[in-house]
């Protein structure tokens, strides 16, 4: 414990070096995860090479690796949907969360604890209750849609529930704090003097580059969403670009882009993983808010495991999904340039 704050190379550190401090710090967690995660998961992995049935018993054979390509082939649609929905939800949570976290971290003063807590508090109420609540609110003739239909703004057959939009919105809603919290935590710790200094350095207005960057970012994000939601891509690209340009020109300063944003990247990184990963494996939102053609890979794993007692395929699908996520995480980390994070140096 005593080497905690020791900068590498100082006298204190050298004297403590011999103690395997990091290993001691890691030990309880590693043990816990090894016993209660790795070992059972490994057994699960072995079960993906099983063949047989519940009644006749299962037997292990490496020849059963074919379960993997079969599973991918058969469920590629659900895999694709999981990725699209999860990416869309991640982008949406980011778009909602960043300004939210930023405002609370920098503008809310003494109220920031309360506000950030208000963001989390709804999530202490069971997600199932909240989802049922959304079903009441968004019912075909419910509080929200009913009046709009009555005055003719929406066609009578219009609905939100049991559509891909409902599933993605559900994921977005349910995972929002996973994005907001890490971004807030990252922003909140930024030393304000850095931003002041940056403002002094880049004091001038930053309209043109702000507008350009805003247009590019806004346009591309909305275009991706439009593609996923099967909405007109060009139209949304234009809307996104215009909105992004406006925001970029009015709200974004050079100091923000050069200091705040890079310093908050660890939070963005953590947040997007915390949303993306569980969202890919989620099945509850698709089950409660979707229709038969919005099922995700989580629903398949669920039904393979519970309904069909097809443990080999369930295990294979799980491991395909986990491998895919790991690869994506590594690529993403490289792309965002956050690998220095894991080396422990922030700035």
């Amino acid at each position, binding site marked *: 414990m005593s080497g905690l704050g020791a900068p590498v190379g100082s006298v204190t550190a050298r004297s403590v070096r011999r103690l395997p401090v990091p290993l001691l710090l890691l030990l309880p967690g590693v043990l816990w995860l090894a016993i209660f995660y790795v070992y059972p998961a490994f057994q699960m992995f072995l079960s993906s090479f099983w063949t047989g049935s519940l009644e006749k018993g299962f037997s292990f054979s490496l020849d059963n690796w074919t379960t993997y390509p079969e599973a991918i082939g058969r469920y590629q649609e659900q895999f694709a949907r999981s990725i699209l929905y999860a990416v869309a939800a991640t982008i949406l949570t980011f778009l909602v969360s960043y300004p939210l976290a930023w405002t609370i971290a920098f503008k809310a003063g003494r109220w920031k604890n309360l506000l950030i807590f208000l963001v989390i508090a709804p999530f202490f109420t069971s997600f199932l209750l909240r989802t049922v609540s959304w*079903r009441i609110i968004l019912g075909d*003739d419910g509080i929200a849609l009913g009046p709009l239909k009555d005055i003719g703004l929406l066609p009578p057959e219009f609905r939100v529930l*049991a559509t891909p939009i409902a599933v993605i919105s559900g994921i977005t809603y349910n995972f929002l704090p996973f994005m907001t919290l890490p971004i807030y935590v990252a922003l909140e710790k930024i030393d304000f003097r850095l931003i002041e200094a940056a403002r002094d350095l880049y004091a001038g207005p930053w309209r043109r580059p702000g507008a350009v960057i805003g247009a590019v970012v806004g346009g591309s994000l909305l275009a991706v969403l439009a593609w996923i939601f099967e909405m007109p891509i060009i139209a949304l690209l234009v809307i996104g670009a215009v909105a992004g340009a406006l925001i970029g020109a009015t709200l974004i300063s050079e100091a923000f882009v050069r200091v705040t944003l890079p310093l908050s990247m660890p939070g963005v990184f953590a947040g997007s993983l915390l949303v993306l990963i569980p969202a890919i494996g989620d099945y509850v939102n698709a089950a409660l808010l979707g229709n038969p053609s919005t099922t995700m890979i989580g629903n398949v794993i669920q039904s393979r495991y519970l*309904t*069909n007692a097809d443990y080999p395929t369930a295990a294979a699908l799980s491991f395909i999904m986990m491998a895919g996520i790991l690869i994506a995480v590594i690529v993403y980390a490289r792309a965002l340039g956050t690998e220095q994070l894991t080396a422990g140096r922030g700035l």
Partner: protein
Amino acid sequence: MADQTPLDRIITRRQVLIGGSLAGFAAFLAACGTGGVASQAPTGTPPTTEPTEAASVAPTTKPTPAAELNFANWPLYIDTDDNDPTKHKTLEDFTAKYGTKVNYSEAVNDNDEFFGTIKAPLDAGQDTGWDLIVLTDWMAARLVRLGWLEKMDLGDVPNYVKNLEDGFKAPDWDPTNEYHAPWQAGMTGLGFDKKVTGDLTSVNEFWNAKWKGRMTYLTEMRDTVGFALIKLGFSRQDFTIDQFDQAIAELQKAVDAKLVRAFTGNEYAESLVSGDVVVSMAWSGDIIQKQADKETLRFHIPDEGGNLWYDNMLIPKGAKNKYTAELMIDFVYDPAIAAQIEAWVNYICPVKGAKDELAKIDTDLANSPLIFPTADMYAKVTGFRSVTEEEEQHMNDAFSTLIGA
């Protein structure tokens, strides 16, 4: 049709009961008192079961009742005190008689889900923690196939032997009736909002494009595929795998045409109430209950036929209190106790003699064809034939693909 009028009658009855109306409850209590159905004082003295001679199983030569019994059942599936939902008179009566504390848990929400939680201990040859569980016929058949159930000692359950309704006797997966003791049965049919759809009578309504996006099917494979088999003119009790595949194809058409909003469990009933859904494959008891909220909801067994299913009390392998579980099975097969449960639960009662006992409490209920179906209705509904493991795998697989998972 024929069952519409009596059905409407129970609706009103249900509204009174379900609505928690004190008057209704008082009437119910009074009926209990005069009928001598059950003891008014759940304290002390051995109660209730004098009227039926076989009731007193003397546990003298047998092992003594255990201190507790772990009982897993579906939610809202036992008589419940309208003023204090934590109280179940039947269980209190059981405790009064045998001194056994019943740990009653509404832990079963879904056959597959519950199976998932007991599979591992049973597979490892360990006790599941439950002494008595209630699961649907096909899941019971699977457990029998797997050898994961205890056989009842029929000598311990004279009421059960005597009073089990003939229609539930000797299914091919339990020819000697040693594994399964039906708890309640039910029928699957057309659930609809009469105000929107008018009267519906045909199974073809499940393929009617008029209800596009406002219709639900069930996640229960046997129910959903059953209707497709009926539509195609095949028998649910005697179909070939090829006919099954045709039925799946028939359902796939409806899914592809986006007629089906969702495949659901009991949740469809809530959607019928909210109005998001107007036609459902539905379970009889659900619709009756929801009529309190939306009186235009109707249940009808399609003229072409419907599904009959039943949930069974089963003793999982290695149960610690097997004998006490048998006592419980025998206890609820006492017609007086069965009537007491039935008056609250309103599904189909598998206990002979319960009708007369229930008549003492409530004539309307006792005459309801949805609780004691007429011979006509029994003729209309059929069970789903039992299947081998290979067939079950093939069917589940095809059905999963249909529902998108």
